[in-house]
């Protein structure tokens, strides 16, 4: 299979994730869609590593997975804190930081 098709799949995953981030209002689902975008980038990195025969892309993909895990941990902590304070769990309602 030509490497280009892997890149097409990764582009589609990224766009599906981006559409979800823009359209959904539940912060939990927005975090899930962010995961989708990161996974699309990961697939492109691994595909490029295969294309060039270098291993730096795979190491980069692993680091991206670490960063994604950190982002999930902090994001879910924020959601739990929002739920504890009985704030509406809806990104359109949480506009206090707008100033």
């Amino acid at each position, binding site marked *: *299979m*030509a*490497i*280009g*098709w*892997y*890149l*097409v*799949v990764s*582009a*589609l995953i*990224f*766009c*599906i*994730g981006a*559409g*979800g981030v*823009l*359209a959904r*209002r*539940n912060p*939990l*689902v927005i975090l*899930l*869609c962010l*995961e*989708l975008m990161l996974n699309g980038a*990961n697939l492109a990195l691994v*595909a490029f*590593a*295969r*294309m*060039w*025969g270098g*291993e730096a892309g*795979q*190491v980069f*993909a*692993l680091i991206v*997975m*670490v*960063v*994604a*895990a*950190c*982002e*999930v*941990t*902090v994001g*879910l*902590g*924020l959601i*739990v*804190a929002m*739920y*504890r*304070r009985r704030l*509406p*769990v809806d990104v*359109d309602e949480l506009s206090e930081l707008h100033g």
Partner: protein
Amino acid sequence: MVLADVIFFVAAIGVLTGAFGTVMLRNPFYSVLALAFHLVCLAALFMLLRAEFVAAAQVIVYAGAVMVLYVFVVSYVGGGEQLPSGGALRVLGPMFAVAVAVELCIALLGSALRGIRGQGAPFIPGFGTPGHIGTLFLTKFLFPFELASILLLVAAIGAVVLARRRRGLEELAPSELRVRAIQPAYTGTLAEAAGVRPRAGEEPPELEIEHVGGAGARVERVGGAGARVEREGGW
């Protein structure tokens, strides 16, 4: 070569189905399950690209640990209620996504770059195995490796600080009401997370409304049958 093509198409269809399911499903619990399916199919694609260690880490860390964290939070917060649709972004967001997807597909498939058209570099035995990646992490990429571990430590401590129960957090503003309700039996279960409603005959719980305002605190009780509290916002 033919078998690899078949596996690629099956895995790619699985990956895209999982991604669509994550975005389209109304219930966050089912979205998490769709994302887990997506991640497992993506690990198959990684195997096809000869990234064995990345595929294994994907299944163990992502589809295992991170998804369990998501399931716990959805069960805790209760993702059964759904948000009504509305807003301009509901139309503009998917349109933007489709536009970017079309543009990227034209750029990738219409490109004349020989590297994208090719099958990739010749395969070296040992490429992408755990031993190879581990050696790289401890020699060439030692600094990013240590930086990643520090980042993980900071994120873990930050999450504990954010989500812990703080003294004074429960105090409400003076004008607010405090409503205590006896929780139904199914509260906090996976059935609730998946949006299963209680049976029709079941009475809503009796509520105890406490006025915490300055004009004298008092407690009143609202009967079970007629009272129904809808959480604002919801999912």
